[in-house]
């Protein structure tokens, strides 16, 4: 199967188009079948990459520089697999969440089309090997994500969607200006070619440096790293629950992955002095600020959204550690990707669980959800188990990733990041236990009956359990990281 990368983009796109033109009554069936197909293709792609190594795919048979190549490497396959697993879970949850009796509620049933469009653009974003194509894919993700946030159509959703859109536009235009400056200096857009050009002596001009800096800033804004996180909590919290889960688990990982390719795959070490440490320092700040805000949020979805702000911070600590040497790079990168995936699974479970709990209580106030451990044991278990991954306790995927990042930072002689990683776990414990304490308290607040179908209760738990045992998949992650195209040669010519 040589056309796997193209098929991974075409399949959800065809599904989206089909859902849009067919009758409302088959929306769910088409989306579910499409999700199953994408998952099968994602498994095949991961197997293929493990088997033959990273490969390039020429779209339409046109070679670069005329054509725009897709690049399938280990990390890309990993993120596509994560998107397939979380996406399928979200799809199944959504078939129960959106009332089939009222197809016109929630934006005239547009969820299914927009959701498959978002999936298409995410897969394209993970596979693209061209800096301009990253811009297009980011925008496609952004447009479908904003539309999904506003589905409810009430004032709160529109406000959140509007803020998200303007942050998205600011990032898009900044990124594009960066691309323009890079192209004006070196005349290349393909990432691998770009890396080769930047390694040549005398190519590190100020134009290309400013361009790359603008692109980094734009991607940081898209990934909602503190202090550019202002749009995330409202957007993720006021969206319909399946959308919240997809945004927090997958969409922020899309722009993060583009940043990873830019920082480690395109820029030679030390190309933009200080940027690695700055991003890691902001990441540490994000862990602190996001955790504190999560402790203070009275409403459950806002609480989960701020925990995302905190968890995003860990992803940025990898940059200075990864640059400390060849041997640390693989360990640090494996730790970061493991964290991204464990967080993706756990956060999707946490958001779906929180959303279901909110529906059953009929309100979003954490303080009035007392006794949920007895009245809604499955959902409480899902939230608590997802919390284990957030805290990074063994045996969760969060533990595996933190252990790798901490040993990489000690190996790199940068012990201070190990302190941040350890402290972040304590902060996560603090905000998770605040919520769990309410759930297990003796008093009982009124709660509605479990809603049918049962997957509204069990799907969050399945995701949380998957995150809990994800550390077992760590060998697979390291195997896939070993076939990455991200590790730019460590030597930089004068």
């Amino acid at each position, binding site marked *: 199967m040589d056309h796997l990368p193209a098929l991974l983009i075409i399949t959800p796109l065809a599904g989206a188009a089909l859902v849009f033109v067919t009758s409302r009554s088959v929306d769910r069936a088409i989306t579910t079948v499409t999700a199953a197909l994408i998952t099968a293709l994602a498994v095949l792609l991961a197997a293929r990459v493990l088997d033959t190594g990273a490969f390039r795919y020429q779209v339409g048979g046109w070679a670069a520089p005329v054509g725009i190549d897709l690049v399938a490497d280990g990390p890309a396959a990993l993120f596509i697999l994560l998107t397939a697993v979380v996406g399928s879970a979200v799809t199944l949850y959504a078939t129960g969440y959106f009332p089939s009796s009222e197809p016109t509620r929630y934006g005239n049933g547009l969820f299914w089309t927009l959701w498959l469009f978002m999936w298409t653009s995410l897969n394209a974003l993970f596979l693209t090997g061209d800096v*301009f194509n990253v*811009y*297009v894919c980011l*925008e496609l993700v*952004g*447009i479908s994500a*904003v*539309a999904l946030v*506003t589905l409810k*159509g*009430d*004032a*709160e959703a*529109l*406000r959140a*969607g*509007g*803020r998200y*859109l*303007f942050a*998205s*536009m*600011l990032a*898009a*235009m*900044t990124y*594009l*200006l960066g*691309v*323009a*400056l890079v*192209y*004006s200096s070196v*005349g290349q*857009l393909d990432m691998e070619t770009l890396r080769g050009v930047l390694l040549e002596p005398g190519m590190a001009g100020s134009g290309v440096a400013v361009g790359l800096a603008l692109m980094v800033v734009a991607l940081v804004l898209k990934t909602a790293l503190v202090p550019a996180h202002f749009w995330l909590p409202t957007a993720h919290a006021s969206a319909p629950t399946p959308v919240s889960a997809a945004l927090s688990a997958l969409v922020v990982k899309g722009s993060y992955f583009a940043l990873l390719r830019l920082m480690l795959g395109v820029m030679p070490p030390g190309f933009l002095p200080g940027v690695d440490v700055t991003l890691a320092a902001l990441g540490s700040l994000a862990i602190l600020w996001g955790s504190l805000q999560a402790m203070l949020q009275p409403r459950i979805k806002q609480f989960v959204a701020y925990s995302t702000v905190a968890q995003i911070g860990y992803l940025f600590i990898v940059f200075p550690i990864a640059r400390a040497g060849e041997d640390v790079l693989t360990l640090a990168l494996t730790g970061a990707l493991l964290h991204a995936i464990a967080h993706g699974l756990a956060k999707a479970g946490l958001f779906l669980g929180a959303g279901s709990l909110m529906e059953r209580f009929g309100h979003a106030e954490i303080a009035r959800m007392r006794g949920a451990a007895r009245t809604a044991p499955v959902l409480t278990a899902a939230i608590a188990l997802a919390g284990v991954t957030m805290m990074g306790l063994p045996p969760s995927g969060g533990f595996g990733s933190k252990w790798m990042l901490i040993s990489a930072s000690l190996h790199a002689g940068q012990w201070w990041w190990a302190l941040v990683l350890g402290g972040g776990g304590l902060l996560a414990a603090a905000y998770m236990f605040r919520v769990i304490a309410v759930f297990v308290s003796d008093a009982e607040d009124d709660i509605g009956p479990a809603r049918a179908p049962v997957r509204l209760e069990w799907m969050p738990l399945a995701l949380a359990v998957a995150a809990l045992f994800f550390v077992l998949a760590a060998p697979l992650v390291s195997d896939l990281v070993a076939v990455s195209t991200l590790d730019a040669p460590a030597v930089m010519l004068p």
Partner: protein
Amino acid sequence: MSMYLIYALGGALVFAIGTYALLARRHLMHKVIGANLMGSGTFLVLIGLGNRTPDGVTDPVPQAMVLTGIVVTVALTALGLSIAKRYFSVTGLDNLDDEPSGGDRP
């Protein structure tokens, strides 16, 4: 001063004006127009680029990027305008900063 430099500096100026409007203005229309100005500034830089080849033959890649950029900007603008319109009809507000009072306003 080369032709490209005029385009690049002009583009940067337009981009800066657009950024200011997007960040500092509260009115939704101003924000949408600001984002469009940022796009136009970038397109100016790119268009100027196409003219900068040593052999005088126009480089088509920046023009292709501008075309794609315009399509994306049109889509973003349409989405922004429809959100603004819907938001105004639901809340009666023209900015996102004031708390909407919950739909009881005209």
